[in-house]
């Protein structure tokens, strides 16, 4: 399309690209540059930081206990990814490969459940976790996040499983594979891109989630990073350099993740959303 673009058109495109880059990148730039700025709190509208320092990072990691919070978040995220990947794949195979009574009802139910506003479930889940004595536990939080990421994962993976031609499976049976063997060596590699997409979604759901971690985790040794940042914010008033350093630490893993897998992610999400 670009080859026929006129001079004015090229100028318009350039302006649009510049505006897009400014809008998307400015908050990231401001966060990172404030995190390194030794005088972040008095920065005002200076475009460049007044210097480079790692003090804010050192401060949040040591006194702010942020390394512990990040580790908690990573543990919860990893647990969510593994559990939701396994459960969702089994469920997706069931709804994509088998015709059984109630199949449509199960599908509609999974779709409906995806629409339940989780924010409305804070109170009952708080009561439930309290009854089960799982309030201050990373396992309790993992299980809750598993429930949140599961419907989307089932719905997305279902598209990927359905896209694997039936003939490929039948060929595996002809070669003498049993169902389990076929699942492991044929279906699993073929739906791997879908698993990547749903894993990222699950991890990010868990890593970014705020309100449930905020309500469930009352012992500050069990805070996740998002909640730890909130406490930090209140405790030190507006020490913006420190808050931005904490924000950078939370954002960085997700950012690297997104940029690295962006092509696969786009394909995976689109497949889930369109199918």
């Amino acid at each position, binding site marked *: 399309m*670009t080859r026929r673009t006129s001079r004015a058109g090229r100028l318009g*495109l350039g302006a649009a690209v510049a505006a*897009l880059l400014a809008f998307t990148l400015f908050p990231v730039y401001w966060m990172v540059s404030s995190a390194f700025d030794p005088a972040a709190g008095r920065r005002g509208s200076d475009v460049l930081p007044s210097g480079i320092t790692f003090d804010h990072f050192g401060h949040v990691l040591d006194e702010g206990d942020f390394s512990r919070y990040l580790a908690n978040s990573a543990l919860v995220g990893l647990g969510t990814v593994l559990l939701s990947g396994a459960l969702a794949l089994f469920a997706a195979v*069931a709804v994509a490969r088998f015709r059984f009574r109630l199949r449509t009802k199960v599908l509609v139910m999974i779709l409906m459940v995806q*629409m339940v506003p989780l924010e409305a479930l804070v109170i009952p889940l708080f009561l439930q976790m309290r009854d089960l004595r799982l309030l201050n536990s990373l396992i309790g939080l993992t299980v809750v996040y598993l429930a949140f990421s599961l419907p989307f994962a089932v719905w997305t993976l279902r598209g990927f499983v359905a896209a694997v031609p039936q003939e490929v499976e039948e060929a595996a049976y002809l070669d003498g594979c049993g169902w389990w063997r076929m699942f492991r060596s044929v279906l699993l590699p073929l739906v791997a891109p879908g698993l990547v997409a749903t894993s990222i979604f699950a991890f990010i759901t868990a890593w970014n989630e705020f309100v449930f971690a905020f309500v469930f985790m009352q012992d500050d040794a069990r805070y996740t990073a998002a909640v730890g940042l909130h406490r930090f914010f209140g405790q030190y008033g507006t020490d913006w350099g420190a808050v931005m350093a904490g924000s950078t630490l939370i954002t960085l893993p997700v950012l690297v993740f997104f940029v690295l897998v962006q092509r696969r992610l786009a394909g995976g999400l689109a497949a889930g959303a*369109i199918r």
Partner: protein
Amino acid sequence: MTADPGARARPARPPRASGAARRSAWGRALRPWLLLAPALLVLAVLLFWPLVRVLLVSFQDYGLRQINTGENNWTGLDNYRDLLGDSFLWTRVLPNTVLFAFACVALTLVLGTLVALLLTRLGRTWRVICSTAIMSAWAMPAVTGTYVWIWIFDPLDGVVSGGLDGLGLIEPRETNWFTERWSFYAIATLNVVHHGFPFVAVTLYAALLTIPRELPEAALCDGAGPWQRFRLITVPAIRPAFTVVTLLSIIWDVKVFAQIYLMPGGAGANEDVLNLGVWSYIQSFSRNEYGTGSAIAVLLTLLLLAVTVVYVRTLAREGDEP
């Protein structure tokens, strides 16, 4: 369904019709349910039962005492009567929730569509640069994104007030955008749109890629103008994806929590800026009125249920299963 030995022995025949398949019917009928069982169990315990329970609690005067003893204290529809009879709901919370969601959804969709169209017109290098930038906006978690926007608009040392002060436009210490309802929500809208449009852009871009290259060229040969090509080729190609992202955006933006709660005054100090989600949280966990909080949560759920029905119907109409 193809897992039985009969199907393997006679691959030419449709497996469902084979005799051996019928013999192992029990195993076949059980297998999908075995595969589904763990997922359904998790959903039942952690989504269905809580959904029932929030409804049960919303019919009670549920306070600290009930939390500690676990006993019930039924008051029927009292919570709902109080809520719906309170002008606070109608003049503050509901407008905050609905208008804010509407503004966010509209801006997210417009920006997302424009960016998707922009991506198709770029060469490879610039497309990679732009999509990486989009990813960075998407990747920023809601919590940290909110803090960054608060910092940007900080009334004392933020970049915006600093810049406007430098231009002589405002008196920095007298302007606090977080105290006033409209400017508070303007900043929240900026935050939510910045975080939300990448999903729309990426999804619609993927849909745009499904248009065969020959189609616009053929239309061009037939003398179709740019507007006609957009209306007749682009719009039908992205419509299914567009429907989905619209409804998902509505659902996400109606129940926004962290982006409001974490803003200065958003955690209950400024009653003017409460939305349904934050109000429910504050009634429950700050004031220990879990019954009222649950009733607000049920109202939020009902609001979204209406959207969900549209969502499912639309998907069904797009010719998708079920």
